[in-house]
């Protein structure tokens, strides 16, 4: 049976050991590993800046670093986390690795473009890191004009160029994914037999392809403004600084859906696998991903309710913003219903999935406050907003990423990690996260504005709570690095399907062959058919 599991002789990790075999690979799995290492570095770098921010905010005075340094801390934290960690994360690591096997393909449609995508990401990262080393940027990750166009004297151009370049990486990843899902599915893999992870990535890819070019052109306009003294946003010459905000948010709002949709896809896989039950309302969950992608494009000005837009425009965008909440709610209810009469097991990935439910719920629900005009006027640009988006981006997207990593780690590496330490880590992250960000909801309504280096004395206790929580959260993030690395050599061998999960990826050996399958699979079953998997394992079929 399963007690003599061995790592297979030939797999994608040992098919070639030279640096060239990695740097010139066309294997989507190797590219995924290289992305994994790159974004992990970026994550800890962005995290370091967050540590700087929270250390400063433990006291009301600006006494840890100078104001300029602090402003650079939160800017670099945002830039790195948004553009170099969150946007690529799940699509470039888990999407790259899993989409071909999930649909029964040998690779993505354009393997060389996949590699190019990685190089472009590295190039963009290099520009931004160079800007950081040269002294950094202090405009906030949102780069609003006129401050970014004329008043700031920091290294905006190289940073913006880095983001511009990395944007192409995102576009190409999305493009590859869309074409792959359209044209590379194995025989019998119809659209409605696709795992929900694939649906989620399809929706994400549409947003990446359609949205990212707009931030690219916005950066071009900022560049010519700053480098050549052009006047597109210059009020003195008749330009409109608020135009920048419209163009910026036209991408950056859909961007947040690039960051969360893949995690929603992971969540569907985890809930299903660890209750060994098909997802309740499969087609509703699938279509809700598409709905979120579409509605995400028509709500951008809810970031601008107090930016001087007309009352009527504000009302339109508030109304539309509620529309994008509904599909997310539908997903939450469907996941809950999946657990009903399931066979639930609380392995670590499921702990992350549960944590995700709680934190994404709070994050999404706090969004309702912000969509409501009467309340948003008070809350805009306060810590309430900061808490809202961290609940979704960190409590949602990062939990989804970590949950997925813990779920597919045995497939990616062939090894299992420590059950004990991974559970400790999941719980530590959940607790640390709430202690960090819940007080921010309170201090935000109290009126504490964002991006404040120093603040009124009476807000200190809530800030200290938040900073304390951040310490716990950081610990929760460091632990996985240790036990994941440890598992590579000392973890028990996992075998092809340690979780008894459904999905073509679990039909491959662990780690997979370079070509994924020895024979192209033919799909005859609906997704999430656990009856069949159990039968196979107990040799009843």
């Amino acid at each position, binding site marked *: 049976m399963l007690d003599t599991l061995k790592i297979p002789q030939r797999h994608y990790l040992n098919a070639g050991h030279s640096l060239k075999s990695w740097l010139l690979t066309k294997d989507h799995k190797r590219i995924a590993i290289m992305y994994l290492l790159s974004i992990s570095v970026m994550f800890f770098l962005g995290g370091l800046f967050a540590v700087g921010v929270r250390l400063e905010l433990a006291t009301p005075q600006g006494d840890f670093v100078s104001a300029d340094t602090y402003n650079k801390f939160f800017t670099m934290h945002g830039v790195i986390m948004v553009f170099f960690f969150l946007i690529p994360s799940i699509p470039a690591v888990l999407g790259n690795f899993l989409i071909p096997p999930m649909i029964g393909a040998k690779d993505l449609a354009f393997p060389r473009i996949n590699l190019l995508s990685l190089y472009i990401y590295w190039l963009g990262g290099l520009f931004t890191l160079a800007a950081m080393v040269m002294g950094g940027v202090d405009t906030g990750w949102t780069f609003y004009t006129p401050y970014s166009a004329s008043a700031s004297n920091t290294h905006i151009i190289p940073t913006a160029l880095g983001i511009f370049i990395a944007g192409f990486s995102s576009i190409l990843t999305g493009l590859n994914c869309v074409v792959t899902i359209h044209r590379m599915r194995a025989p019998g893999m119809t659209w409605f037999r696709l795992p929900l992870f694939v649906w989620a990535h399809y929706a994400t890819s549409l947003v990446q392809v359609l949205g990212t070019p707009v931030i690219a052109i916005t950066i071009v306009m900022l560049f010519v403004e700053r480098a050549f003294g052009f006047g597109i946003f210059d009020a003195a010459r008749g330009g409109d600084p608020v135009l920048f905000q419209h163009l910026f948010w036209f991408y950056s709002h859909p961007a947040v859906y690039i960051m969360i949709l893949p995690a929603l896809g992971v969540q569907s896989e985890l809930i299903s696998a660890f209750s060994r039950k*098909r997802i309740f309302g499969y087609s509703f969950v699938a279509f809700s991903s598409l709905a979120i992608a579409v509605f995400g494009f028509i709500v951008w000005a809810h970031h601008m309710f107090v930016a001087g837009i007309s009352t009527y425009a504000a009302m339109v965008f508030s109304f539309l913003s509620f529309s994008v909440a509904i599909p997310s*709610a*539908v997903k939450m209810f469907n996941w809950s219903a999946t657990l*009903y009469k399931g066979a639930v097991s609380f392995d670590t990935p499921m702990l992350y999935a549960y944590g995700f439910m709680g934190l994404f719920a709070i994050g999404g629900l706090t969004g309702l406050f912000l969509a*409501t005009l009467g309340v948003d006027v008070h809350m805009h640009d306060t810590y309430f907003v900061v808490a809202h988006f961290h609940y979704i981006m960190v409590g949602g997207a990062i939990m989804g990423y970590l949950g997925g990593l813990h779920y597919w780690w045995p497939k990616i590496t062939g090894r299992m990690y420590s059950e004990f330490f991974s559970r400790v880590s999941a719980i530590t992250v959940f607790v640390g996260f709430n202690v960090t960000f819940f007080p921010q909801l309170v201090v935000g309504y109290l009126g504490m*504005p964002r991006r404040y280096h120093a603040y009124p004395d009476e807000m200190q206790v809530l800030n200290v709570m938040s900073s304390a929580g951040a310490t716990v959260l950081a610990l929760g993030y460091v632990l996985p690095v240790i036990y994941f690395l440890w598992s590579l050599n000392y973890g028990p061998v996992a075998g092809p399907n340690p979780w008894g999960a459904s999905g073509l990826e679990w039909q491959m050996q662990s780690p997979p062959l370079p070509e994924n399958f020895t024979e192209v699979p033919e799909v005859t079953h609906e997704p999430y058919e656990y009856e069949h998997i159990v039968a196979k394992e107990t040799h009843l079929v």
Partner: protein
Amino acid sequence: MTIFGIPIFPDQASTFARDVDMLYFFILAVTSFFALAVAVSVIYFGLRYHRTHEGEIGARIEGSLPLELLWSVIPTIIAMFMFGWGATVYYHLRRPPDEAMQIYAVGKQWMWKFQHPEGQREINELHIPVGRPIKITISSEDVLHSLYFPAFRTKMDAIPGRYTELWFEADTPGSYHIFCSEYCGTNHSGMIGTVTVMEAAEYQAWLQGGGEGGTLSQRGARLFENLACNSCHLESGRGRGPSLKDIVGSTVDLEGGSSVTVDDAYLRESILNSQAKIVKGFTPLMPTFQGLISEENLVALIEHVKSLSPAQKGQEEIVKK
């Protein structure tokens, strides 16, 4: 409102603060209900349907159209209700009454300049009467800023090249925060102040410029704070402006090589035309107060600065123009 002395809810100091808070509590109730409902369900299901043996699988349930409709339609109705209520409150927030008193605010890096209709000017301070609607027309001299009064529950961005406005009617006397809430550079978090809501009679007295008695230099000390001189002229000398301690009668070196003796004339010139003589080692950051300060206040301020040099006996010397 505080818990164990920790403030957790802002003051309600305007007529519509209550409306905003009621809406807030409604949304809080609804969202808490749903968050709790989901949390309870998933925990209950997770425990009740815990896997009991290896190989156990879940029931074969595809879905339920009625349920899907239920939990799409009900949230949509709730969302529409929230939208409607929010839009109504917002409309009220953005429609100043015709009889509102007009105040002008200009944001600049890094201070708020307010001007009253009677001509009174303030920096980072705003004195207003209770019970009267106030409309503030806002602009910016440089980059984006945002004028925020948390206690009144309203804010509006300051945009260069155009006017925006906000209004409120303060209904509770007291002192409340003014914040800049649009990131604007180095001293964004220093661009804060206090709005003082006063009873009508007190406000009239304040408008006169007198009312608050005390000696000339005591008045000057208050002005020194109100005009935010203390934010740059730190006693330690490590602020953006030179320390004013013990300078009267001394000789200071200036940018450009010359030097000057600190006397009344120099102090007056430095306040009214700060760019004229910059102390060595400092940059021309100080705003000029020409037209912003009355003669009596100028004198009071100079007296205060002189009182910081106790070795020199401060004399009530009035400098004539």
